[in-house]
């Protein structure tokens, strides 16, 4: 809370994803593509394969224009955006890992120099010198992954660093090696996919067939390494994280499933490309690229969402709240820690507690979730945020501050009774009341589904339970809404109970 809050209408997650996914898609190609170029060149030089050398020269132009400009700049872009979105976590990372980044920078300088000279050197350099620069390029590019992988994986699984604060402990954390192998596999796979896009533009014929077969081999090899290492990666993540994800975090789990389907789709498309190698249409290569991008997008979504509620597991929450300062927050409140103020405490508290993930009526909107509810209910939800689905950070401020956040939200929602809203929109009140009042925790069909306990209960019993639900513990709030909504909710709970019976 030492920083101002950038209040943009776009969700932070979306903003981060747009820059990060595009960057990783290019930067991994920058590594794998370098390996592809130099390995293929070496073979072509040995066999005197002139058409292949001409193809590689063309590919290297595409490679340079893509990786040197877009890849490098979006990498800097990630650095810019994390500083804007979560400056506290960025500050923590820079203080702990500045020498990691500095080491990566030395590889970056080598990489950029080598890429430029390799691209400009096709006509000028001797074959041996050109190959030497190619190998230097690849080594530097891969070593930069070796370094940055330590920092990325640290954020999900800092391991014993949380106890000793040692640089290398955090760097070689539990997911370091599987992630490195997996990302190396991705680099190889993307080398094949990108090169296919260039090869697909060649006229149909034997040479094209040779090119496509070569590249699909790279694609499939990379995919096999990636798939195996992804399973290893999942196994290396502490069970406390994966178990919780499987229980209450639909987003990372959905993303994980998507990576499996998309990997299968890539495999099928690569096989198809191999089958029509002689006349591979650009559209197939294009679809392969898009599928690869989608795979990477889903994987990054999985990795980022799995960290919830943290941005650095066990250390800093996604909203910049620091775990180490828990006692201070509880004692003094959030407001006392906020350095840059807007002049309205409710706004400041909302921005620093909720806004990094939620907008009022845009990305991860709160308005639909709270329309037709009351301030007491919203306050209870704020205070019990960590109990809700999605694994949210806990609210560590004072009760008065939770009330101020609730007032801020309440002033911006539809304050008509839920019954009236439902009538106007033509929706059933019961299910809607359940979704709003209960569904934040008790999603139907999950382990938190309590439908069984409603079976055989009378309307009076259920009504009494609602009115005294705080007594059930676990942060449950009492029912605080109007009577019409209460009756509809009770009726719906009875329906749920009956469905279980059946």
């Amino acid at each position, binding site marked *: 809370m030492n*920083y*101002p*809050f*950038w*209040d*943009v209408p776009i969700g932070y997650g979306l903003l981060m994803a747009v820059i990060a996914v595009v960057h990783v898609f290019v930067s991994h190609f920058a590594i794998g593509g370098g390996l592809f170029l130099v390995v293929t060149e070496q073979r072509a030089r040995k066999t005197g394969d002139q058409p292949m050398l001409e193809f590689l020269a063309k590919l290297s132009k595409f490679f340079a*224009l893509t990786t040197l*400009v*877009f890849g*490098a*700049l*979006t990498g*800097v*872009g990630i650095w*810019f955006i994390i*500083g*804007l979105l979560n*400056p506290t976590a*960025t*500050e923590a990372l*820079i*203080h*702990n890992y*500045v*020498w*990691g*980044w*500095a*080491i990566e*920078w*030395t*590889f*970056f*300088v*080598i990489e950029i*120099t*080598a890429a*430029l*000279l390799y691209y400009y050197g096709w006509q*000028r*350099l*001797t074959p041996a010198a050109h190959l*030497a*620069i190619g190998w*230097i390029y690849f080594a*530097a590019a891969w070593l930069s992954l070796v370094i940055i992988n330590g920092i990325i994986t640290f954020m999900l699984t800092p391991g014993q660093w*949380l106890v000793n*604060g040692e*640089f*290398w402990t955090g760097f070689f954390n539990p997911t370091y090696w599987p992630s490195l192998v997996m990302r190396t596999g991705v680099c190889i796979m993307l080398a094949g996919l990108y090169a296919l896009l260039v090869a697909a533009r060649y006229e149909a014929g034997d040479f094209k067939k040779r090119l496509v077969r070569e590249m699909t081999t790279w694609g499939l090899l990379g995919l096999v390494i990636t798939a195996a290492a992804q399973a290893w990666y999942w196994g290396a993540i502490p069970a406390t994280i994966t178990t919780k994800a499987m229980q209450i975090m639909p987003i990372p789990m959905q993303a994980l499933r998507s990576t499996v389907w998309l990997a299968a789709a890539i495999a099928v498309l690569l096989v198809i490309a191999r089958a029509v190698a002689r006349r591979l249409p650009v559209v197939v290569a294009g679809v392969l690229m898009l599928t690869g991008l989608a795979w990477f997008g889903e994987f990054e979504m999985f990795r980022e969402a799995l960290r919830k509620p943290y941005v650095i597991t066990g*250390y800093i929450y996604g909203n910049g709240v620091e*775990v*180490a300062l*828990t*006692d201070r927050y509880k004692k003094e409140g959030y407001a006392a820690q906020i*350095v*840059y103020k*807007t*002049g309205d405490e409710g706004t400041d508290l909302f*921005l620093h507690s909720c806004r990094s993930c939620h907008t009022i009526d845009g990305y991860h909107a709160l308005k639909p979730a709270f329309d037709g509810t009351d301030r007491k209910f919203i306050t209870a939800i704020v205070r019990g945020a960590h109990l809700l689905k999605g694994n949210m950070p806990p609210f560590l401020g004072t009760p008065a501050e939770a009330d101020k956040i609730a007032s801020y939200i309440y002033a911006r929602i539809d304050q008509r009774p839920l019954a009236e809203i439902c009538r106007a929109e033509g929706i059933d009140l019961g299910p809607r009341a359940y979704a709003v009042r209960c569904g934040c925790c008790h999603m139907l069909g999950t382990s938190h589904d309590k439908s069984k306990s409603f079976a055989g209960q009378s309307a009076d019993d259920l009504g009494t339970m609602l009115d005294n639900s705080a007594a059930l513990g676990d942060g449950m709030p009492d029912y605080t809404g109007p009577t019409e909504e209460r009756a509809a909710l009770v009726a719906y709970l009875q329906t749920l109970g009956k469905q279980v019976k059946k």
Partner: protein
Amino acid sequence: MNLPNYEFLSAPLWLVTILHLVTLMLHFAAMNFLFGGLIIVIHAGLRKRWDDPTLLKFVRLFPAAMAATVTLGVAPLLFLQMTYPRPVYAAAIVSGWFWLGVIGAVIVAYYALYWSALRGERTGKVCLSGLLLALAGVVYVSFVYSSVFSMAERPALIQQLYAQDQSGRVLNPATGDYLLRWLHMVLGAVTVGGFFVGMLGRNEPVAYKTGKAYFVGGMALASVAGIAYLMSLQPILARLMQTRASWVLLVAILLSLGSLHFFFKKNFCASGTMLLVSMLGMVYTRHIVRLLRLGDQFRPDAYRIAPQWGPFALFLVCFVIMLALVAYMLRLFFGAKRAA
């Protein structure tokens, strides 16, 4: 909870400061080549003062100069964020959209430079529109950087601006803080650009003469802007003059004049070295101005020092390997050119 505290510096402050200043100087050298070179080439192109081959020679180098500018810009920004994270990020957030726009502007400028270079190779003519687009991108970046980094020297101003607008659409309104500094930097870039034009065109009388004109003229105008900027620092000028920075600045000015002397003698090695060291002096002065302006509002020396000597040593080893490999590759490349 007994978690590791991140509020520390992983090397002594003096060491981080040296790394910051030296890498910033290198970044400025590359940036000035690009920025100044662009201004000179566009100006010369508009006035049809040069024959095309000389222009093209420079234009071909621009993408590499941009690569060097970006690459060498990463390290000083890293060390700056390590030492001054709070004021720097706070200022960046208040200008969030402009700050993020830097990336877009550099990408556009970079592609425009490649476009100009490739088109120049193909047609043998300078692509003025591409260069103008690139220049617009570079001007944008330089202006936003000046705005944000000068705002970062005034946390109270950041608080005031943030209270008015949280959307990240605010540039530093205290233009008095940085307009002259920005102008000094632009004219300094023209000076350095002039040096490189003269050096690259040393065997072509027209090119050398043009480079000399920009070198001398740029330095004269940059000096005027620099002095005006110093005068604008009234509230802290007296204190600045009491620090070591005043001597460093004096030496830097003398070195700049010395670089002119050697430029006239066509001793570009001595001239360039003096220019580079004088740039280091300016960067140091700039650093002291930042410290004086921040005063007690943010003190990097208040950080706890907890050195990570192992990772630092590895960085040094990698740094030496980087220098060796870059030198080796450049020797391979330019040696091959000579042989060809």
